[in-house]
């Protein structure tokens, strides 16, 4: 497609080497959070609230303390009470008080599964039995479990002590933690001039990231008041910061060693068990490991927000969008922050909209405190926008790709929040979709009797965050390079980072050996999330590799006693420009270099890497009698900037699509009126199995980002955005029915079919 910024033929980038950590992961050697074993280690277990909303009147731990094999019991009294300070301005907003209360409730439980106490015991079964003996006296309160209930006039209030920020005004006694607005142009005029205005409201149930590895937290609190933590996390430094805040310790007293991480998708950014294990360790002077069950994971960790989104779009008679309005109400869960600013940024991101207005509400409800889930809030808003766009195309008979191309956002288009796009590749994705075998194929319009087929298309967006990353390199005496980084590797990032260093150094990917290390051993590195890792940590590796070359040249100059301007480096060889006989391999220069070993380090604090766009095409088949939907053909098209390791880029596209398909068709928090999740197991939280999906075709479009030397854009998040609307649009195509609630499960389809008749 477009040439990359460095504009050259790559030797390493774009190839598909075996990932460095792969051998440990196919042999069972890789150590994940639960796999750690320390000498004298005890097992922790937590007591959780059976109620979604209640005041804690008292906690009696005496029976548990008396049990054989129980070493310590803790409650929130063992944690410092923190004030309400807003932290940071980047990925770590929110309040310390809420951070701490979410780890363990002080006065009030705000969701079923909220931790109220913990024990450390000789083994898991003893710990579980002890937890059963902890008696908590609750005053049960009425829960609010969705945005309508929470925003109602007489709603039960979660945070009596908290003020909501409603367009800059402090408001007490509200579950609306924030109301923000963005305005751009004159929408009243825009709608007035419109030839057609379409409005839809979608309703999305809470969903879970569903990572296969439950959370864990292992800690040792030593006599010097230093806390060592081992955990499975997307960000060891984020854990260090959070743990130090909750325990009121200086960050340097906390050392976090990241274990291998069994999936996260945003959900392994918050802390849960780490401070609990630490306090239990302080009380017992022994290492403590605490694990979650699958039900705990569903009940008490990071769901992606449910909520309601209303979108209204007006077009002129030529099919150009004139105005757009969005009303976004998302569930934050128990504590504020439902990613409403991200929602606002994403809602009209695929279109050039001359006038728009967005109202977004961050609403607390009695569900677990929501965590980022892969492009947080973007799928929710895309469902509304892409449904409206599809409806416009249906009403006017427009080709859905042509309409999107006519209104496409591209470089220079003003985005919803105001700033203009830098180079982006949505147009190229739409063109690739139009040109794809899938789009050109005939939808089998004559399926088996009783079955209907439909095709849907949708676009989606996620911006990539930048932020801080650090990388150290050292040239080993054998001429190979050790790469030290702080980005926990959730799906092949060791490889994609090492490959960027290898490209700079002109050596094979396998000659750069990456290690992910603890927080004492590398500079600050922000979370593996926000589609930033290959971009930002890769950029740090790129810079560090260039610095390493500087070192190599400097030391060669010393060794040969010539001016360093006379030396050039390429592909693992240092040469004198003047004397062709004078050259050394990396192995030769690495063997006893003058003035000490050859090392380098680099750190970055980056801006966003231009946005990432995806376009998905879904063909499905519906059994009209049962409402069962099967995906029969699926294609994911995405601007990936530059695919460093194409296999893992495809993997992100396929995995994101699969999660989105699950979200569209079956996944939901099925809540009782009391605020209890009734389907908190893999049996009833229906994630797709291998038999539920077809092969997922991928088309990687490469429009390089302007902000990265190789043009990298994040690739992990955009692919979860289009599936929900693509499937909704395909269902409409098959049946002539608009389903506006997720999941679009069989019973909803048969009900809608009956209503239609």
């Amino acid at each position: 497609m477009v040439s990359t910024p460095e504009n050259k033929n790559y030797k390493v980038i774009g190839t598909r080497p075996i990932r460095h950590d792969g051998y440990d992961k196919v042999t069972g050697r890789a150590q994940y959070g639960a796999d750690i074993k320390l000498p004298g280690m005890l097992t922790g277990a937590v007591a959780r609230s059976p109620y979604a909303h209640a005041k804690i009147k008292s906690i009696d731990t005496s029976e548990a303390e008396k049990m054989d094999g129980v070493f310590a019991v803790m409650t929130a009294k063992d944690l410092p009470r923190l004030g309400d300070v807003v932290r940071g301005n980047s990925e770590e907003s929110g309040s310390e008080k809420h951070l701490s209360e979410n780890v363990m409730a002080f006065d009030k439980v705000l969701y079923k599964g909220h931790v109220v106490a913990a024990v450390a015991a000789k083994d898991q079964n003893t710990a579980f039995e002890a937890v059963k003996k902890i008696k908590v006296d609750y005053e049960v309160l009425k829960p609010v479990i969705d945005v309508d209930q929470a925003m109602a006039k007489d709603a039960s209030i979660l945070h009596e002590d908290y003020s909501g920020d409603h367009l800059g005004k402090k408001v007490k006694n509200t579950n609306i933690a924030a109301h923000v607005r963005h305005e751009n142009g004159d929408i009243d005029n825009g709608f007035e001039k419109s030839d057609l205005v379409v409005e839809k409201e979608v309703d999305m149930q809470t969903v879970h990231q569903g990572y296969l590895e439950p959370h864990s937290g292992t800690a040792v609190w030593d006599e010097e008041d230093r806390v060592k933590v081992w955990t499975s996390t997307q960000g060891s430094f984020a854990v260090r910061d959070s743990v130090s805040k909750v325990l009121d310790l200086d960050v340097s007293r906390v050392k976090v060693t990241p274990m291998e991480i069994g999936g996260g998708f945003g959900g392994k950014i918050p802390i849960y068990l780490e401070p609990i294990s630490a306090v239990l360790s302080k009380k017992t002077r022994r290492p403590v490991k605490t694990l979650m069950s699958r039900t705990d994971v569903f009940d008490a960790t990071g769901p992606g927000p449910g909520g309601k989104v209303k979108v209204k779009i007006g077009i002129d008679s030529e099919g150009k969008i004139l105005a757009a309005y969005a009303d976004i109400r998302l569930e934050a869960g128990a504590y504020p922050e439902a990613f409403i600013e991200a929602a606002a940024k994403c809602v009209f991101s695929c279109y050039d909209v001359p006038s728009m207005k967005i109202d977004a509400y961050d609403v607390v409800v009695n569900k677990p405190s929501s965590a980022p889930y892969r492009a947080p809030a973007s799928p929710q808003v895309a469902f509304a926008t892409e449904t409206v766009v599809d409806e416009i195309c249906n009403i006017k008979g427009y080709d859905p790709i042509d309409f999107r191309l006519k209104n496409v956002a591209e470089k220079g288009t003003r985005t919803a929040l105001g700033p203009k796009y830098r180079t982006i590749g949505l147009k190229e994705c739409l063109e690739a979709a139009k040109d794809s075998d899938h789009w050109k194929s005939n939808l089998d319009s004559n399926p088996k009797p009783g079955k209907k087929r439909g095709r849907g298309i949708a676009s989606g967006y996620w911006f990539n965050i930048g932020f801080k990353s650090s990388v150290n390199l050292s040239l080993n005496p054998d001429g190979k390079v050790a790469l030290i980084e702080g980005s926990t590797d959730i799906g092949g990032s060791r490889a994609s980072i090492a490959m960027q260093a290898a490209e700079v150094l002109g050596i094979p990917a396998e000659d750069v050996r990456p290690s992910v290390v603890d927080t004492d051993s590398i500079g600050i590195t922000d979370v593996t999330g926000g589609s930033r890792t290959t971009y930002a940590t890769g950029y740090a590796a790129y810079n560090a590799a260039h610095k390493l070359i500087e070192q190599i040249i400097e030391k060669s100059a010393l060794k040969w006693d010539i001016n360093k301007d006379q030396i050039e480096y390429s592909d693992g060889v240092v040469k004198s420009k003047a004397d062709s006989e004078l050259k050394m391999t990396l192995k030769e220069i690495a063997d006893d270099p003058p003035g000490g070993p050859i090392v380098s380090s680099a750190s970055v604090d980056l801006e966003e890497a231009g946005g990432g766009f995806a376009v998905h095409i879904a063909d499905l088949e519906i059994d009209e009698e049962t409402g069962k939907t099967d995906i029969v053909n699926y294609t994911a098209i995405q601007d990936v900037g530059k695919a460093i390791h194409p296999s893992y880029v495809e993997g992100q596209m396929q995995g994101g699509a699969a999660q989105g398909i699950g979200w569209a068709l079956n996944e939901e928090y099925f809540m009782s009126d009391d605020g209890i999740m009734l389907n908190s197991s893999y049996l009833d939280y229906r994630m797709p199995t291998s038999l539920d999906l077809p092969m997922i075709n991928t088309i990687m479009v490469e429009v390089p980002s302007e902000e990265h030397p190789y043009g990298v854009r994040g690739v992990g998040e955009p692919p979860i955005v289009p599936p929900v609307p693509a499937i909704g649009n395909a269902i409409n195509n098959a049946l002539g029915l608009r389903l506006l609630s997720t999941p679009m499960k069989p019973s909803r389809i048969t009900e809608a079919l009956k209503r239609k008749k």
Partner: protein
Amino acid sequence: MHPFNYYAPETVEEAIEILSKYGDRARCLAGGTDVLVQARGEKFELDAIVDIKKIPQLTKLEWTDSYLIVGAATPCHILYEDSKVCEVFPGIVDSAFLIGGIQIQSRASLGGNLCNASPSADAICSLIVHEVICEIAGPKGVREIPVEDMCTGPGKNALTEGEFLVSLKIPLKKGEFSASYERFIPRNEMDIAVAAVASSVELSDGKVSSCRVALAAVGPTPIFAKEASELLVGKEPTHENIKKVSEKAKDIASPIADMRGTVEHRKDLIKVLTRRTIEKALERAGG
């Protein structure tokens, strides 16, 4: 989980003795795919678990002149990997092939599925339409009951203290008999039935000489839909006649709404699945 001891008796008598001693604080362990999950989930507290797989007749398939006798702890895969069972009882195999995934089928048994008495159990409807007889051993000796009398409520069965299910006797039919089981799940595997139906038919001179329809996940126990079944007996298996059975089955279904399905959807599904399973059974029976 409350700690329990493990017993692995090698005779029926030994098993009865242990079960009698512990009463409701003991459970049999066949495949463990339900009992271990429930013990862990604190559905009940156990002091003893009695592994019955070491009693030879509990894991045996035996063909007699009148029956296929399936040991109660025989894992599902034994059934669907046996070509004779597949040929003679495809309806039973339908169920055995649907319980859980491959891992579960290595362990889970029809007997366990029956004793667990879940309203949505995949095996029970098939057993009902095959007129299976349960052979139960207990302190007072061996007794036999028809399978439809086994489930007495959600998770409750007809076994009394010290008793356990030894085997399932599936009667061999002389005529053109076959059966089919189908469940509806939103996914394609690893799911619990939203609604399910098993149907069996026996043909004689182009007419249905016997028919049995059983429904799951639409009542507190799997239901033998007797009144629906009877509508086809003595009739030709026409669309119109099958439709009457389906509609009656739908009437009989009395589901609840829960996370797995709505009342209306479940009732509609019963109608669809009744028709589909009867048609499939007819096709298999050679009709």
